[in-house]
């Protein structure tokens, strides 16, 4: 590392901007877009020093970077935040390297500089490795496999499995499924139409006044039987009205239904 050694001799004014291809300001926009982040820019600047990365002057590199970013801003180019963060950090590093060392401050500026140099070395190593990788004889570009191989085939043959238990259990299930099933329909409490006819016509004869249909139902029943009796009694009432034996009256839909013997 030559951080301190070279720093004193370097004249900041002599540091020139090194855009990668063309120093023309018009293309600077493209250049800054072309960097893969601040570290990438730093690596390109470092390489422009044309020394092994181990011998690099970090102080010179810092100057180069700051000058580059300054120029970009002078040209009113938009500089992404991470480049500015790096610029601020490098400005701090620069002052720390130039000022008398404060032993209280950890890590030391030399360590920070070394860390930066190590990062650049590592990025550079991977960049070169990638290039060498891509330059190899690549299958499908430089070397070729057969274009139309016969191919290998694996024919899958099923080895069917079943146990004796599966077999007899299945047969048991079929049998159970198909055994005749007997059903006994429970006797339901209903009032037949005949019974209703008999009851309604008998009760009609006992009173001359209008009476709701409910009064014709057998007393003391609830639920299903009462519903059945109501339905049957209603049909019986309609039948009696048709025969001219009864009159029906209702004020409106769902209003109480009144019956009385005909005329």
């Amino acid at each position, binding site marked *: 590392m030559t951080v301190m050694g070279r720093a004193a001799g370097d004249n900041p004014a002599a540091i020139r901007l090194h855009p990668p291809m063309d120093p023309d300001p018009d293309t600077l926009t493209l250049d800054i877009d072309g960097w893969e982040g601040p570290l990438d820019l730093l690596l390109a600047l470092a390489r422009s020093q044309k020394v092994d990365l181990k011998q690099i002057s970090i102080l010179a590199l810092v100057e180069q970077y700051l000058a580059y970013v300054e120029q970009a801003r002078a040209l009113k180019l938009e500089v992404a935040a991470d480049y500015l963060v790096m610029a601020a950090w490098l400005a701090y590093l620069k002052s720390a390297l130039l000022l008398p060392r404060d032993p209280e401050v950890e890590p030391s500026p030399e360590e920070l500089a070394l860390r930066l140099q190590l990062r650049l070395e590592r990025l550079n190593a991977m960049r070169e490795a990638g290039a060498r990788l891509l330059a190899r004889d690549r299958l499908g570009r430089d070397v070729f496999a057969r274009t139309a191989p016969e*191919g290998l085939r694996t*024919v899958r043959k099923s080895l069917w499995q*079943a146990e004796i238990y599966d077999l*007899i259990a*299945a047969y048991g299930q079929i049998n*159970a*499924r198909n055994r005749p099933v007997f059903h006994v329909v429970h006797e339901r409490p209903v009032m037949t139409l005949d019974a209703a006819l008999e009851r309604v016509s008998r009760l009609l004869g006992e009173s001359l006044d209008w009476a709701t249909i409910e009064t014709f139902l057998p007393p003391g029943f609830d639920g299903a039987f009462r519903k059945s009796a109501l339905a049957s009694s209603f049909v019986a009432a309609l039948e009696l009205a048709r025969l001219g034996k009864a009159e029906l009256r209702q004020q409106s839909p769902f209003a109480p239904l009144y019956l009385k013997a005909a005329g």
Partner: protein
Amino acid sequence: MSEEPDPFERAVEAVLFAAAEPLTLDAIRAHVGEGDVRQALDRIAAFHAGRGIELVRRGDRWHFQTAGDLAHLLRRDREEPRKLSRAAIETLAIIAYHEPVTRAEIEAIRGVQISKGTLDVLMEAGWARPAGRRETPGRPLTYATTPDFLTHFGLASRRDLPGIDDLRAAGLLDPIDLALADAVLGDSDDEEVANAAEDA
């Protein structure tokens, strides 16, 4: 190999290997340039003769192919254990208990149609076989089990299959479906009637 391969021969070999289809002499020449392609082909053919790859001529085209007598190696059979489907195991059980039995009879007993694949699977497994035609209208094919069936299921004969009484004693005639149905339907008379109608 001790002798140094001829560069031109190497080039022809590589071009033929990478080609998508058999190549004419002209097509080969278009890749490798000037040289005696015919002679190179003869020498390549001789080099590979009797090995796993051979250079063959088809009309006026040349190509590499796998040696014909080794074609059987390119196909490999692999056995995979598979469980029979419920439909297949039921069908097999009906055949075993009722053989010889027609497809229509199997369906009548199962209460559902069987797909074509079901009987195929049983025959592929080597457990069922066609067993002649029934002399009734339409002369339907009947099915029966095979000796392999007995072997696989460890039966000396079909008479070793448990009878209906055995199945009942083993609880195999009290299927879960109906027991469950009874439990559910106990609550409501109306529902029981509806379900009974569906079951019938």
